[in-house]
């Protein structure tokens, strides 16, 4: 299947786009053989530094590289300004929604979001009702997935408000590009992303508990070195200059969360956790979890630790809630959403289910709670048999699924053995929320390396690119 997609570098209709003009001039002067060499250099750098990720269910390749493409994805200053306005509005609404949903639930009273969507949702944590996190921030670190389908049309595909990953790739991709092509960065003014770890640290410090005396102690909580994103956890802790802790290092001491050090227990004020809600506290959630800290929720409710992101934020990026985001944004900000949603069929609704089942070969169908591209169906790319099997799963538990039209995601060229070739991309900018909202100019561009493929997830054979926001 081939969709006529908008190419961000060289659209068929209008020719080379302006943001790429300087890069294109440089590219034309390059020897293709040298570029191929640079591509191999990049892979060596990544393997040497151990920037790998684990793929679940693949024993052979327990450590794999995410393929990196050396052609940057370039966004003009103007395009970026528009995007950031939309993202800021969205993130404000997400936090307001979370505060509301765990307190007065005005939006449910107003009938803008159906009550049963919340009450029966596993991502909604009753334990968080009435709990106000330090500084009133629920989701501190957000990765908003954005797709583009034409010169002017951007859509939000997903709001990752729990524990978005991938920011280390944004940073390492830039680092690698600067090592490979230093001359490019002298010719073209690209806005820096390197200060993300410092911003993250400042942002986390700003939301410390009120009771914190002096400079707060911050730590990153990882499930451990066998987790697929362990590299990123270690990378961020390292870059921020904070401790990387595991559940086994922590316990509750005198009403605070403390880590076991060579000098005894030391209090932690802010915990950037990369462990899912259900594993956070075996006394409150999954009793079999060894990844969390028994009693941390009591400390949290007493206001003695900041957990970023707050437990229960999943209710805001749930795929069933997603379809209500336009209403949610308008409800809390009083304005129409600047960044649109992709039209979404909620399979829990009988009319929608009927439509989806009838058009299964045209749609993208996702699990409401799934992530990483697991458990989804891309109708146009699936075989008849795959569609039939999926239809059965869907009919058995409709409320578990949503469906969206198959969009012609924009493309961006990648370097292949036969030269440049267009591939579909998306974009995940990273947003930090404290007493202000900060968005690092750039983000992670994910690219589907297979010709025609629309699935950009790294676990499904996607790669990444450096993302440039021009200082123009």
């Amino acid at each position: 299947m081939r969709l006529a997609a908008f190419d961000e570098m060289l659209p068929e209709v209008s020719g080379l786009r302006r943001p790429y003009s300087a890069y294109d001039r440089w590219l034309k002067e390059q020897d293709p053989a040298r570029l191929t060499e640079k591509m191999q250099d990049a892979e060596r750098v990544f393997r040497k530094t151990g920037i790998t990720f684990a793929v679940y269910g693949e024993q052979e390749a327990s450590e794999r590289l995410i393929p990196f493409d050396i052609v940057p994805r370039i966004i003009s200053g103007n395009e970026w300004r528009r995007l950031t306005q939309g993202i800021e509005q969205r993130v404000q609404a997400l936090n307001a929604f979370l505060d509301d949903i765990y307190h007065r639930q005005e939006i449910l009273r107003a009938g803008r979001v159906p009550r049963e969507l919340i009450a029966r949702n596993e991502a909604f944590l009753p334990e968080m009702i009435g709990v106000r996190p330090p500084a009133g921030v629920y989701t501190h670190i957000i990765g908003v997935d954005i797709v583009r389908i034409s010169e002017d049309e951007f859509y939000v595909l997903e709001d990752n408000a729990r524990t978005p990953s991938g920011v280390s790739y944004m940073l390492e991709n830039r680092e690698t590009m600067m090592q490979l092509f230093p001359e490019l960065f002298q010719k073209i003014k690209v806005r820096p992303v390197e200060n993300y770890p410092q911003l993250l640290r400042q942002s986390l410090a700003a939301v410390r508990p009120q009771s914190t005396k002096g400079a707060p102690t911050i730590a990153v909580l990882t499930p451990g070195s066998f987790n697929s994103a362990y590299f990123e956890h270690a990378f961020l802790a390292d870059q921020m200059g904070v401790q990387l802790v595991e559940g086994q290092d922590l316990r509750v001491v005198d009403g605070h969360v403390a880590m076991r050090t060579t000098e005894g227990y030391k209090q932690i004020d802010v915990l950037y956790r990369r462990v899912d809600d259900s594993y956070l506290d075996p006394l409150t959630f999954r009793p079999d979890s060894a990844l969390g800290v028994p009693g941390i929720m009591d400390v949290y409710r007493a206001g003695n630790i900041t957990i970023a992101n707050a437990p229960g934020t999943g209710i805001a990026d749930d795929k069933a809630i997603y379809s209500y985001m336009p209403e949610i944004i308008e409800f809390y900000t009083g304005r129409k959403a600047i960044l649109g949603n992709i039209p979404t069929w909620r399979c829990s609704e009988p009319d929608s289910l009927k439509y989806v089942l009838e058009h299964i070969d045209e749609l993208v169908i996702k699990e409401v709670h799934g992530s990483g591209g697991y458990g989804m169906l891309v109708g146009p790319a699936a075989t008849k048999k795959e569609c039939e099997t999926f239809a059965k799963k869907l009919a058995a538990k409709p409320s578990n699924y949503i469906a969206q039209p198959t969009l012609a995601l924009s493309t961006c060229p990648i370097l292949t053995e036969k030269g440049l070739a267009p591939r579909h991309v998306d974009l995940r900018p990273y947003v930090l929320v404290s007493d202000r909202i900060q968005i690092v100019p750039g983000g992670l561009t994910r690219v589907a390396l297979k010709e025609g493929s629309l699935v950009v997830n790294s676990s499904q054979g996607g790669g990444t690119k450096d993302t440039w926001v021009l200082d123009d």
Partner: protein
Amino acid sequence: MLLGRTANGLYWMNRYIERAENMARLVDAGLRMALTRTQSASEEWNSVLLSAGSDVTFSQKYSDYTAANVADFLLRDTSNPSSTMASIETARNNARMVRTALTRETWESINEAWMSLKRMLARPIDERDLPSVLDAIKRETALIRGSFYGTMLRNEIFDFSQLGTYVERADNTARILDVKYYVLLPSISWVGSTLDNYQWESILRSVSAHRSYRWVYDADYKPTNIADYLILNVRMPRSLMFCYRFLSEHLKFLGDDYGERHACHATAEKTQAMLRAGSIKDIFDTGLHEFLANFIRDNTKLGDEIAQDYRFN
């Protein structure tokens, strides 16, 4: 201040890097001896396995003490937790866990050593390639050590790492001596046969000291000098005395930094004082084997105390 788990990771990372290299050195010495063919090679390989502390697990798997079997078992068999490959793998897993405590250069040198040894030891080693494989192992660990010494800040991270290195090294040297202690006993030393000469050289070779020995002592090998060199010489980097000088020093740094002394401080200082005051004659008078057995026991105790005192486990 470090996480107890981090201190533990640093300590074991360095013990295993040291061990990976010691295995290569032991095989190297064994290979030398076997090549001289002055005595049964299988006996020599057996004593190599004894020094490596792997004789029991080896005999469960093999019946023949051949160069190929022993090299395979000590260098590449990952079911032997002390083999070079298993050690590098464990060292790297620990390094991954404590990555934030390491400089980029140190981490990369460990990661690269792991990648290149994994490639090199993927298939059984052809006997003709054994010397170059042993060289490569020593080179990789030397690169790790170089990156480590060249880039790491001299703080508690460095101290815990060094504790691992020297506890492992002291244990290794003491074991090598203990396995061969009988060839060093004065009662037979007057014989000074060719066989003894090879045996003595083998001991020195297994701690990479066969050349430097001659810079310190006579050109002739004398068992009392060899024992003195490996036990009491404060400048010989693999001697027991040298290890304890640095163990005491790094423990002292930690004690000063944290403002607290523990049981491990007393244990290390006691052993150091005993080595400093001792003469090789005294050691032979009380019995070399007894001396070494006591030393190995105390050294193990020191390792346990460090883990306990600094909340490793």
